[in-house]
């Protein structure tokens, strides 16, 4: 069995206490919520924190409720709770759908939505044991100098592999972060950066405390689809989320789409407005939008599954999710 590196476990009951502990242990510590990403990564010796600060007992981080014109989702809500929550299902069905597609039931009972936002990027050369990575000669993201995907050393292209952020991006969600110096709030698309080594603007001392989705977004038609080889467990090989504001007569007021599991951050599809706004979402328009998505997406061999096929699936999946918008 793979063993965990030794660590001390801290169980603060407030955000202030948690950030205080982080201040105290600084670089030796990491936060842990559900642990479904961090614990396997620790077993692979990708992280070896000597202190883990658990967020499970921090009550401020839980709760799903309407507040100041937003649906506020506490970051420590599990993916199972988000997926099964009546309010989420009613207002943001695509989010419930995405949360319900993460991993398998046991992992969704432990993994949190905040953790899903902070999920470490994934790569076939990175998510491996220390023996395997040693035999490889390590990689740019951890302990090495070369990226084996691109065969150059400049940039890590590990894939953002979380299911919920694309949906949150199409809904204009905000992320609240708390650190030793107080709180700040970011639009979720600004939360992610294009760096496979560390792909968010969250500093290691900050905690994602909540996700806020404007209630106004609930009137948008939403859809989500995930490509994977098995119907459970697997991380996405491609995730597509779309949402659109469509008038009663079928005229598209606004539309946006996000794809992920290709590069280091979720990609907001561009060039859709001029094609779609003011028009009708018919088969021809869907084909054009799908083609435009295809042009923008160039997956690399960062996951074990054929990159050409993953690229070819972009227009297919974009078309399929857009067709769901027509029906709903």
């Amino acid at each position, binding site marked *: *069995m*793979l*063993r965990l590196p*030794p660590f001390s476990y801290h169980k603060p009951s407030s955000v202030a206490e948690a950030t205080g502990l982080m201040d105290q242990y600084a670089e030796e510590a990491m936060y842990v919520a559900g642990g479904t990403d961090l614990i396997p990564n620790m077993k692979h010796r990708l992280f070896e924190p000597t202190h883990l600060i658990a967020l499970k007992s921090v009550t401020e981080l839980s709760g799903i409720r309407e507040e100041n014109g937003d649906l506020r989702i506490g970051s420590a809500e599990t993916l199972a709770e988000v997926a099964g929550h009546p309010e989420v299902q009613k207002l943001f069905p695509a989010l419930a759908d995405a949360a319900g597609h993460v991993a*398998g039931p046991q992992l969704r009972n432990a993994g949190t939505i905040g953790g899903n936002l902070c999920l470490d990027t994934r790569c*076939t*050369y990175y*998510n*491996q*044991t220390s*023996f*395997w990575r*040693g*035999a*490889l*000669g390590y*990689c740019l993201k951890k302990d090495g100098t*070369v990226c*084996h995907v691109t*065969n150059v050393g400049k940039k890590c292209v590990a894939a953002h592999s979380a299911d919920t952020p694309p949906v949150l991006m199409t809904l204009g969600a905000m992320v609240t972060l708390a650190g030793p110096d107080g709180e700040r709030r970011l639009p979720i698309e600004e939360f992610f950066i294009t760096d496979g080594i560390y792909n968010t603007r969250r500093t290691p001392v900050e905690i994602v405390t909540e996700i806020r989705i404007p209630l106004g977004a609930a009137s948008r038609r939403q859809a989500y689809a995930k*490509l994977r*080889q*098995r*119907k*459970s*467990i*697997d991380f996405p090989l491609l995730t597509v989320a779309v949402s659109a504001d469509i008038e009663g007569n079928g005229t598209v007021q606004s539309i946006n789409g996000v794809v992920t599991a290709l590069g280091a951050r979720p990609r907001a599809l561009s060039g859709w407005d001029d094609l779609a706004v003011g028009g009708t979402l018919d088969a021809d328009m869907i084909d054009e939008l799908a083609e435009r998505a295809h042009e923008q997406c160039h997956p690399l*061999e960062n996951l*074990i*599954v*054929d990159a*050409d*096929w993953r690229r*070819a*699936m972009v227009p*297919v999946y974009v078309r399929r999710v857009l067709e769901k918008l027509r029906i709903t």
Partner: protein
Amino acid sequence: MIRKPHKDKSDLTLIGTPMRKIEGLDKATGRALFTDDIVLPGMLHGKILRSPHPHARIVAIDVSEAEALEGVHAVITGGDIPIKYGIIPWTADEYPLCIDRVRYIGDAVAAVAAVDEDLAIRALEFIHVEYEELPAFLDPYESLAADGSTPYVHEPKKEGGNGNVTKQVCLEFGEVDDVMAGSDIVVEGEYFFEGSTHAAIEPHCAIGLWDGVGKLTVWSATQVPHYLHRELARVLELDPARIRVIQPLVGGAFGGKSEPFDLEFCVAKLSMLAARPVKILYTREEVFYAHRGRHPFHMNYRMGCTEEGKLTSVNAEIVLDGGAYASFGLVTTYYAGQLLCAPYSMSAYRFDSTRVYTNKPACGPKRGHGSVQPRFAFEVQIDKLAERVDLDPFEFRRRNFIGSNTRTVNQLRITSNGFLECLESVERASRWRRKFRQLPFGRGVGVAGSTYISGTNYPIYPNDMPHSGVQMQVDRSGRVSVFSGASEIGQGCDSMVAYIAAEELGVPLEYVRVLRGDTDFTPVDLGAYSSRVTFMLGNAAIDAATKLREMVQQAVAGEWKIEANEVLLAGGIAMWASDTERQMPIREAFNLAEARFGTLGATGWYNTPKDVHGDYRGGTIGASPAYSFTAHVAEVEVDVETGVVEVEKIWVAHDCGRALNPVLVEGQMEGSAYMGFGEALMEEQIFKSPEQGRAGLHNAPSLLDYRIPTSLDTPEFESLIVESIDPEGPYGAKEAGEGPLHPSIPAIANAIYDAIGVRMDKLPFSPPNMWRAIEEAREVGALGKPAFPGGLPVTPEAAPARSMSSGS
């Protein structure tokens, strides 16, 4: 042994009825003990240092720093156990720890024993190995073409030979080329079967205990305690009478635990040095490196038939990618050809099969050893031939049925054969005649058949002793103890002997104890491999139980002054056949017998018939006392945009001779079909290329990225048991554990063709591979529903056959 005529179903009380597994509740509730559950006082934990290179010379190893760590009790390297082991006596080519050369990434180099696992892991970092890297052979054809300019994977056995060739077999039966030339139709195809691994849930685990005065005990999650016993004695140079091997319950094996492994020798040697018990448990990654899974097969098949659809000549050329060591490879190389000569007759057959070494984890036996890969090619070839002669593939198969009580073209003896009934069962249950070539584009059905051995007729080391033995003992309380050396690996062999004891001695099942898996008190059984256990252990158990039953019958008959054969034992009582009101509790019957004959015990054994094989070199390999037969129909839906194949349902009909417990037989049928389905659609034991950072590095040694189907991916199965009542099987039983895997894969391939007109001759049929094949077919206009044989469907309500859809 005494052979009795088979009982009719009406004479049997328990056999043939659904029964629980005797250890089922313990497993379901977590009480069952597996090797890793065993903790001995003072036990140390061992870890094995593994090679990071696919091929390298070991220049130097320095273990002094590791030895100096506090809490490290022993460190060993190759020189400490300098004798090669191997399951096949003629091809032992592995050292427990490599001595001068490492041959794959993961090869064992050194081992430590320390007070806990964390320290053992850390101690490995203090062992310094200097390697000189050698060019690695990763492609079997490069191995074949090697000229010795760089070191072979193994030294050639003959000077000037290619050391990369493990085994080459070419056998010909009949005039293959002449008959082929005279055939009306000849179809040739290139096929590739990707390697796959067993993925048993329990990783390999072993504990060694040296008692300090000369006795070694090894607990191991093994399928072959007897062969392990022999190899431990030989390699450690110990008297076998001083070695005890215990096989606790095993959490799945599928062939992946059917030979000795490095860890078993290491725990023994470390324990001898440290004078404390030592446990080693593989990580999942190590299980992938230990492997011994399905060989990748590169196959060329040329097959001919007459216009009427009679198979004429078959020519097969096969290259097996063996990985770094021989394992069972000698047998695999033969099985690749030998096991294809039923259930169809053919007038001429030749196979040329070559196994080569490559610098990758060793391949070996996996459920359906050696014949799953060629069966895929063979049954797809049959489908192609049937189409060429305009015949329904069921009809083609029927026309070539080999029959029962016959010999195959390679001279193997066939006894019972229920293949036609299997075909009929799946044809009817699947409503084949309304579906074949008639479902809408994208949906299809496919059929395939197969055969498999009920145990290999000859043991791995030549000897004339029984293949299986059982000892049975009866107590005054009514309790029956069965001492069984067979290896329970989840398949139900412990339950099987209990059912037989209860059936023959007339006691309730709860009265039977099975004392098992311990070479100190059980007779030899050769192990859980080649689907031999029900057939051989079952016959041994009947033999032992019959001897005891006859004593009990005689004693009761003496008491009642009747004939012994008039005494029936059933349901916990002894009764008179002529007047079943005349009864006594079975306990009293046992007491009468003990009073008359003394302490009650009996041994039983089974040995194979000796005239069932072919009279040529290699003719014993593939010989079996009986063969099972299987037919599958698979129904699939293909998404021609994504390449995703949904297998909706597989109908599995299997001739198991007699289902001793239909629940366990159905479990084996479903489990086999599931495993074949997984290999068909997703499994790939593959390795990184030089362009991918590190040649020979396992692509994904974890159960996250090595994909086996989840319950959500698994199709519906319908199991249809066919009972041909074999003349030599226990109550007529044959195997059920491996045969039903074979047809899954070709049935799915043939169904894909029926659905979209695309032939998948290479595994796996994963979405990317499917997508590429579909796109190629689309480009040349070949995507579409194939034509119905003869031009028109037979059922009037069916849709028109030809609908050359572009598939969008």
